[in-house]
């Protein structure tokens, strides 16, 4: 599934920033909040579900080639961080769902 389709197929997710990678493939959900572990282990094209809503998480997503970030448990970006996401063209979504529930939803949709 392409990022373009991914961002529009979940009622539970809000689009916080539409990145510049709509043609990329979303491969699988990935969950982790510790950035060094996330960066080392995240599969390419991951839909990365995390609660870390800061610029470092944006950097990790970008460097590790995540397809998008899904901020779970209601975490949200402040103005500064959302501006950074725009600048770097990173796709970010937000949800009130718990990390596991969000990842499960993504898993089921990608494997439907």
């Amino acid at each position: 599934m392409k990022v373009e389709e991914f961002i529009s197929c979940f009622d539970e997710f809000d689009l916080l920033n539409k990145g510049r990678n709509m043609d990329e493939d979303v491969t699988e959900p990935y969950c982790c909040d510790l950035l060094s572990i996330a960066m080392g282990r995240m599969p390419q094209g991951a839909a990365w579900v995390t609660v870390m809503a800061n610029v470092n998480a944006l950097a990790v997503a970008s460097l590790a080639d995540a397809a998008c970030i899904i901020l779970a448990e209601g975490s949200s970006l402040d103005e500064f961080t959302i501006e950074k996401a725009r600048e770097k063209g990173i796709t970010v979504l937000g949800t009130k769902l718990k990390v596991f529930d969000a990842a499960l939803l993504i898993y089921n949709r990608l494997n439907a």
Partner: protein
Amino acid sequence: MSEKIVLNYDVDSDDFTRAGEASSKVKRKLKLMGVDPDVVRRVAISLYEGEINMVIHADGGTIQVIIFPDKIEMTLRDRGPGIEDIELAMRAGYTTAPDNIRSLGFGAGMGLPNMKRYADDLKIESKVGIGTTVKMRVDIP
């Protein structure tokens, strides 16, 4: 590409909002040059870990990246506190990062292990009170 390309960057101290800029620039450059995506990813990850370490532990430093036709060499120099026991520092999970760093999502003790994992070669020279130099090489297949 027959000649080498040399890139130099300064890493500021304590600026987590800018940490990753050198890695991002190198990543973009390599991508534009058409370098294998897996190589690009490994360079980006190992360099970012190094950059973050310089910000957390060493008040910044300098990064030099040299792109050869068959490899990428990265040298990170700082004048920070130095590493007392490199073997211990290399152990996954070992960390000396303070609490405020952990709250940012770092400090899991995975920085050096990640660098070792993603680079084809990693050398650390460090003197307590003087600073640390990290050299990494990623081969281009």
